[in-house]
């Protein structure tokens, strides 16, 4: 199959999804429930994008699964306390690495 064709079609489709609301629905504001519903849908999509790749990382083995769980918990705790994104990423990765190492040593 032609890679160009697939990439261009998905690119055009993605562009249409991005551009349609601001270009064709810009003259009105959403009713409040729709506005809130869109935000909730976006939040759920972000949560999915957090959980799904983390599950992928955890599938490698039990030490990795323990590390992913620890890393995500550390990251969540710091994020809830209002720490900066870079601290969340660094502490989460560090926690995951340490727990994976410890779990690997335990066996």
């Amino acid at each position, binding site marked *: *199959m*032609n*890679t*160009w064709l*697939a*990439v*261009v079609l*998905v*690119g055009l489709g*993605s562009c249409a*999804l*991005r*551009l*349609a*609301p*601001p*270009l064709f629905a*810009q*003259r009105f*504001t*959403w009713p409040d*429930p729709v*506005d*809130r519903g*869109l*935000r*909730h*849908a*976006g*939040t*759920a*999509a*972000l*949560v*999915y*994008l*957090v*959980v*799904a*790749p*983390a*599950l*992928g*990382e955890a599938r*490698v083995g039990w030490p990795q699964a323990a*590390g*992913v769980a620890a*890393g*995500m918990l550390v*990251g*969540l705790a710091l*994020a*809830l306390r209002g720490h*900066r*994104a*870079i601290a*969340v*990423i660094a502490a*989460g990765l560090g926690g995951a*690495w340490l727990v994976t190492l410890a779990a690997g040593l335990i066996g």
Partner: protein
Amino acid sequence: MTALLVARGAAPGTPARRRGGEARRGAMAMLPMLVGYAPFAAVVGAAVAAQDERLAAWAGTWLIYGGAAQLAVLGAVGSGSGLAVTVAAGMVINARLLVYSAALAPHWRTERRWVRTLAAALLTDVTWALALRRYSEPGTASQRRWYYFGAALTLWSGWVTMVTTAAILGDRFEVDPGLGLAAPLCLLSLVVPALRTPGGRASAAVAVPVAIGAAVMAVDAGLVAAAAAGCVAGLLVEGRNPR
């Protein structure tokens, strides 16, 4: 001397200086996200390098402008799937962009058409979350616009640069598998502010089992299902706990 200083650049407190400050704020808010996305960009770059039609695969970096969708398309092409399946794989993942765009459209309705077009073209998960955060803070439409473009252009240029570099380097380097957690942690830091409302917590709570279920059953439409379930759950909980 003062005249010279003014002639050389915008004086403190002028609109030009404020615009520059907002754009810089947006860029600075995006930089940690770029760090978090670097391992993912390396994975996408490696997938580009592994393709027979590398230029076409690389073009997806800015045409599709979504790492997960680009990986899905390249994976489907590599496995010999048909065109319809390949396009569907990419579009299902990017369907969330419609939600993000629709949520931001009311904030952009006073902007000129080219501004709306450019802003929407640069929209992705991180820009959506940062924009919503900025739009909830005080500020003029101009300040918000410059913040958005500062953040969005930083992500776009950084992402394309990182994927291109990884594609050029090909298999000459290897990303530590543990670093794959960086992108989810990056998004985690963005999603937490939404958890401060009952509706936000409900939408997040239903997205977790949907993600687990989709992973177990290998369902491609998990993201769309999570967004739909989150929308319903959030509204239901808010209906029970009106503000």
